[in-house]
């Protein structure tokens, strides 16, 4: 997404610290910058400081030290301007179960200065957008987890925010609901909304984020595009499983020109492992080369470094959903 150079960063954080009673530093000198139009994935395990950071950025918590600006406004000195610019969907959708979806949207509209007819119209648009028109007049207590999350998202969009904060928006959702929410987030971003997304799911960050910041113990320990971060810990590996161990030599000859071959493993004589920067894109040339050398292939798998590998490399611990291997052929 193109970004005008005159626009201030959507989020700008400098030396942010938040200390709680007992001297516990949930956020400990955080620095980060999110450009307008980006989806920024803020990744970290429970207790890393993600939610505390988001609460500061959304004006719900004051920093102990440092500064933070959202949409060009200081979160402490100009909190009201920040609130006008942001949409917030907090962790575990805090929605009154006794109200209906439509009532909540109309109330949210009033909180953001929409008059009766405008609030009604906007509520209708958003209900349609998140697929809740049929359930609009039912009490939220009867909604599924996915419906609540979609409603929470709709509530955050009532006033067409410039920056949208989503705090672990898919925690506890089934894969279908998660997919639906991801599509909606992408669509919002396509319309120009900057999205600041906290998550503890690697897949979510990989699927959605233009850039990822990894937080551990209240500090940003790594930042970059998912690909750049993964490249920091090594290249993808192509695992080729052969039909016969005798063809291993020919297979190594065939694949040698496509990347760096790992030394043969005597415990797995039918396996050849190739390190290649091309990842999945290397599968087709590899199959072709093996075919030309008359090698019969049983299977091919691509193992790409994950953000968890990055996380493990920079912090020494693992995240949710670690260890996924993409399979092909």
């Amino acid at each position, binding site marked *: 997404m193109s970004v005008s150079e005159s626009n201030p960063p959507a989020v700008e954080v400098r030396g942010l610290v938040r200390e709680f009673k007992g001297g516990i530093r949930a956020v400990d000198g955080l620095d980060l910058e999110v450009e307008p139009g980006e989806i920024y994935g803020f990744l970290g395990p429970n207790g890393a400081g993600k939610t505390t950071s988001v609460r500061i950025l959304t*004006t719900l918590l004051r920093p102990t030290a440092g500064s933070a600006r959202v949409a060009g406004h200081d979160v402490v000195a100009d909190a*009201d301007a920040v609130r006008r610019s942001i949409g*917030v969907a*907090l962790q575990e959708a*805090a929605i009154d179960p006794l*109200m209906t979806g439509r009532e909540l949207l109309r109330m949210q509209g*009033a909180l953001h200065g929409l*008059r009766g007819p405008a609030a009604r119209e906007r509520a209708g648009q958003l209900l349609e957008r998140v697929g809740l028109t049929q359930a609009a007049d039912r009490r939220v207590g009867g909604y599924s987890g996915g419906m609540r999350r979609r409603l929470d998202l709709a509530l955050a969009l009532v006033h067409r925010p410039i920056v949208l904060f989503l705090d672990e928006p898919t925690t506890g959702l089934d894969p279908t609901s998660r997919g639906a929410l991801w599509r909606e987030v992408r669509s919002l971003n396509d319309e120009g909304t900057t999205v600041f997304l906290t998550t503890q799911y690697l897949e979510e960050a990989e699927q959605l984020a233009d850039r990822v910041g990894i937080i551990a113990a209240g500090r940003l320990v790594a930042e970059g595009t998912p690909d750049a971060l993964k490249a920091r810990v090594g290249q993808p590996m192509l695992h080729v499983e052969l039909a016969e161990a005798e063809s291993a030599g020919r297979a190594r000859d065939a694949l040698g020109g496509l990347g760096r071959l790992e030394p043969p493993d005597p415990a797995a004589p039918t396996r050849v492992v190739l390190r290649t920067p091309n990842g999945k894109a290397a599968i087709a040339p590899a199959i072709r080369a093996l075919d030309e050398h008359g090698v019969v292939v049983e299977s091919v798998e691509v193992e790409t470094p994950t953000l968890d590998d990055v996380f493990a490399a920079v912090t020494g611990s693992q995240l949710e959903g670690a260890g996924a291997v993409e399979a092909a052929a």
Partner: protein
Amino acid sequence: MNEARVVLALGRRALSVQFRRAQLLMPTFVLPLMLLAVIASGTSAAQDLRGFPDVASYLGFIVPGTIIQGALLAGLTSGTALAGDIEFGFFDRLLAAPVHRTSLVIGRQAGTLGLSVLQTTFFLCVGLAFGAHYPGGFGAALAAIVLAAITAVGIGGIAAALALRTGSLSLLQSIFPFVFVLLFTAPAFFPRELLTPVLRDVAAYNPLTYVVEAVRGLLTGEHGLGDPWLGLAAAVGLALATTMLATLALAQRLRAT
């Protein structure tokens, strides 16, 4: 202008949710009527006591006690609902909106006011159906409704301050018995003159004394039983002081976070 819309929206929400939550509806509408029934049937002989005022109906005399009990419970349940909002995170949604912080307190109070108006009207009608007389007339009944509503806001302010200070739903639920302490240290169901001297002294410091007597004076048309202006002063004073207290509690909460 926008703040007025915010207050209205929050008040409407507080009121509508009240009617959807049985644990809030029961104490505000049913419990006072149950106590009224018990007192009306069990203590009606009190009107034969020397010093008991000569009124058109005993029920009409004790309905003001029920009205004030309702106001107490309306205020308390309002605080309980606010504590629930804080504990379950809904209050954060409100705080993340670009509205004046005071509007969040006033909005809640607007809901309490509306609830009390409905509640008092209901109690007056039930009393009427069971034989209570209100010689003060329609205007006096309206004035009684207003007094009760302002009193409910006053109690709601205390409860909101506690909710904002502690954010604890269980604490708000646990102070429920204090309603009866406040109620029975005011001449809710008996004339002040017939209370024991100690209780009479305590009643003089309870602002509800002046409100319940004012409501009684209005409904019975006997202003000797209670001064409406004194009742109004007590109710307004309580409402202003406690709403300010709640606003300060909110400011303190925001400073602490």
